[in-house]
């Protein structure tokens, strides 16, 4: 870890300006991801702007009937919030399926969205990794890639985004509010927030340097039952091999509407729009769920170690859809 200077931001605008001022500055929130990466010198910011004490830690009702979650709301608090639990249960489930109690107590909403991949080659500075060092090559492509992406990857990078929270937020059509150094704000739909790797896997989001996340807003909860299902190698404290967030609205024996997002399969939470389209109006049946799952994984490519994720994702999705309609 290299030495760095540290300041505590007094306001959101000032924080954004402080980072924008220096190309080698970064925001720090809970630090549960950034500090680990700094110790290994994967991230080497020379200046840290601490945003964790900014008054962005409230969860408020919005005019449209949704919630506005301050960027500094801790993962534990968000998961425990009564409104989240009753109106956005799959968000609460996703948060509680992530990391450990201790980490969730520290981790912020913004930091969770911006956490970096757990690709083990990314974590080892001696290994070639385009994300860490553009142009160096990708050690995972022909290496140990059990945890890696099957959708939306490129030859340059097959890493996945590890967040559970973001997958649920994707299914809920969350919007990310940011503030820039000049004080201007913008709202980014979560689907546009993370980038696929293409030729530039080191550029992971659409945020500009110094642009700070201020909040995440959830629109009015969609009708239907919500389920988050995370599949992992041990009972807790493991990243998703595959996860599915599903909201299925049923009317009679038919699916009225469905929203489906997948985790563990791509460099961003993956919305299964084609599957959603197929399900709208379809019978709530084994066959329809199976077809939807097939469609969701259409075009998926395995890289050897992660081939199993394709059938696993299909089976998990089929089952999660069924679980969502069971008592809908």
């Amino acid at each position, binding site marked *: 870890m290299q030495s760095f200077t540290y300041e505590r931001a007094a306001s959101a605008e000032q924080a954004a300006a402080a980072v924008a001022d220096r190309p080698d500055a970064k925001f720090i929130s809970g630090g549960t991801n950034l500090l680990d990466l700094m110790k290994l010198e994967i991230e080497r910011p020379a200046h840290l702007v601490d945003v964790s004490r900014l008054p962005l830690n409230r969860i408020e009702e919005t005019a449209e009937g949704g919630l506005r979650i301050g960027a500094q709301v801790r993962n534990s608090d968000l998961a425990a919030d009564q409104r989240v639990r009753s109106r956005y249960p799959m968000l609460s489930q996703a948060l509680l399926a992530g990391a450990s109690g201790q980490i969730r107590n520290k981790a912020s909403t913004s930091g969770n969205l911006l956490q970096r991949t757990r690709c083990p080659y990314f974590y080892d500075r001696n290994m070639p990794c385009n994300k860490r060092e553009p142009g160096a090559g990708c050690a995972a492509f022909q290496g140990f890639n059990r945890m890696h992406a099957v959708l939306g990857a490129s030859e340059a990078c097959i890493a996945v985004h590890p967040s559970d929270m973001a997958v649920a937020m994707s299914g809920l059509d969350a919007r990310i509010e940011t503030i820039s150094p000049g004080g201007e704000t913008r709202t980014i739909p979560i689907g546009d927030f993370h980038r696929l790797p293409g030729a530039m896997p080191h550029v992971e989001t659409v945020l500009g340097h110094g642009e700070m996340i201020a909040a995440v807003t959830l629109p009015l909860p969609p009708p239907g039952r919500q389920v988050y299902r995370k599949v992992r190698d*041990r009972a*807790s404290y493991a990243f998703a091999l595959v996860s599915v967030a599903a909201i299925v609205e049923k009317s009679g024996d038919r699916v009225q509407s469905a929203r489906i997002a997948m985790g563990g399969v791509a460099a961003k939470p993956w919305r299964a729009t084609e599957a959603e389209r197929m399900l709208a109006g379809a019978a709530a049946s084994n066959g329809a769920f199976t077809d939807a799952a097939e469609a969701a994984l259409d075009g998926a490519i395995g890289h050897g170690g992660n081939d199993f994720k394709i059938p*696993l994702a299909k089976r998990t999705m089929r089952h999660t859809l069924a679980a969502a309609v069971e008592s809908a």
Partner: protein
Amino acid sequence: MTETKTSENRPTETRNGVIGRPIDRIDAPLKVRGDATYAYENALDGTAYGYILGAAVAKGRIAEIDTDEAEGAPAVLLVMTHRNAPAQPDFGPAVTPTVREVFTRARPVLNSERVRYYDEPVALVVAETFEAARAAAGLIRVRYDEEPGLYDLPARVADAYAPKRTNAGFETDSVVGDFESAFAAAPVKIDATYRTPFEHHNPMEPHATLAAWSGNELTIHTSAQTLANFRAGVASTLRIPPERVRIVSPFIGGGFGSKLIAHADTILAALAAQVLQRPVKIALTRQQMFANAGHRAEMIQQVRLGADTDGRLNGIAHDVWSATSSFEEYCEQTAVFARSLYAAPNRLTRHRLVPLDINRGEWMRSPGEAPGMLAFECAMDELAERLGLDPIELRIRNEPTRDPERGVPFSTRNLVACMEDGARRFGWERRNPTPGRTREGRKLIGHGMAAAIRPNYIGAATARVAIDRDGRVTARLDMTDIGTGSYTILTQIAAEGLGVPISSVKVELGDSRFPRTAGSGGSWGAASAGSALHNACNALKERILEAARSSEASPLRGANATEASFADSEVRVGQRSASLADLIRRIAPDGFEAEGSVAAGAATESYKAYSQHSYGAHFAEVAVDCDTGEIRMRRMLAVMGAGRILNVKTARSQIIGGMTWGIGAALMEQTVLDPRHGHFVNHDLAEYHVPINGDVPEMEVVFLEEHDDKANPFGAKGLGELGVCGAGAAVANAIYNATGVRVREFPITLDKVLPALPVIAI
């Protein structure tokens, strides 16, 4: 849980009833309060901090190393590389002339420009703070001439060689009868090949050392399991007499076999402290532990079983191909247990090694049995199914009356009793022998069992025990407590032996100035150190009695009855008695002291005349999710016959810890060696999975009443590692029973069962 009681009148025992009692861990209050000081927490004035830089390649030589920037960095005191490190002996041959030298040989660090394995130390930075040292380490530039290395075991099995011996000095091969012919002729056969992966010990406390010189005396605060060997290894690496090295290791945050020998933290701290004339502290990082602190090697194991149609084995063969290091051989005794477990006239066990460009393997959690039984006890399950026989019945039909290869009788062997008792408690008869048939909702349920065997090792040990004028007892020995409960059971042994309450006994461990023991390893600790302490207490009693009978001031002067006892803090001779403290005050105001010893087991007559092992039976119930293939434990049971149980609570903790490692081995533990780069890919605890609380189900442990009078004076046998032996196989067999999928490549992750799981309609 059945508790083993001290019931019969045994000549070598008093009957104070302290041994066996489930008393709480003596060191627990210190640990929960954070008052137990671990190696890295020791503070000495003027301590400097070291940080190790590891090699970026797995094989080659350092062509250039530029330390200028690091040397100029703030607060840096020293940058040590092979160019300026104090001279050390050469590494020496890959195989030491004797078994003992494995533990005591020199293992120099920063001694050459050669890189032998990935992340091998290439530089040490010492600075005023840890942070400064770590930052400066990042400024060192190294250029390597990289050489192609060998990292792929399965691809290189043809190059395997037979070592001269296995770990712990067992024969490499054993041959009885003619296995090949018997197997060819056997009406029922199993020929199955299993693979077990690289695994890492991963104790919670990393390898850490604070080294300080005072003149030419070196004190090392570290985390070590066996102090005498550790000291000898340090001394030979530093080329100083062992008497000048003191090792202090009172508390150890887990070792699992990875702290038997000194690692780079210790050697480099000692060297840097010498150069700087200041205390130096170094810990390996979690990532560094994967390359630099031992591992269990990857193995390929072929098990062949030939039986008649009644299930009687005609032939047993267990062949093991294991990875080893190209520069230091380590051959885990993986097939050795098979020499004692089941009867069969024709037998073959063989160990072969494939050298790779990796660091040496080290003794990990039941070396030999842990991987060996994982394979072998699955093969027995496969045979039972092929025969249409219950797996317990198959084992009973092959129960030997004498050790099948040595021909000597067993000291005690309660394997059948363990299996039968376990079957009753577990409800084994309700298991559906046809796999894949038991479903609860969308989960497949399965039940499996496996046998457990683990040799009883006794290491040479001495203990010193003293009693003062207030009747307070202090026992000292260089034994260690690696979280197993040594402090507690030794306190019980001394309290029992001298007839004093537990609160009057203080046991001091973990200092190489104390009498030498074999330390903690191989589950020999309790029996070895315990026997020595038991004998020391007997010697102390004799001294007290002698003085009590003869001393002028003694209230027992002249008591000449031969029968004497120490109980309830009193000494009784015939009809006369006196308070122990009062007696000591009168006859020896300075108190008494005595020593006691035991010889290494292998050297004793009883060890030669008897086959000495602990036994057990494991039972497991698993649930497999039909949709995702996730495998979760539902319950486990272990029934153990391991001699007399010294403390039912600490013994149970040992066994459930072992069972938990069994879950790990069966379901998740695996370090991936990248065959291109030669590095362990998943080298941290986020990616290297051990079972967490949620993975550990309800566990029941039962100890059968047993007293092995061939083993040692109080009839106890090694226990710690028995819990892991066979536990993983019971889990694997349960998975097979649940799913009908036989996975022979460990760990059994969901991707390996998923393709065969039914897609159940919704």
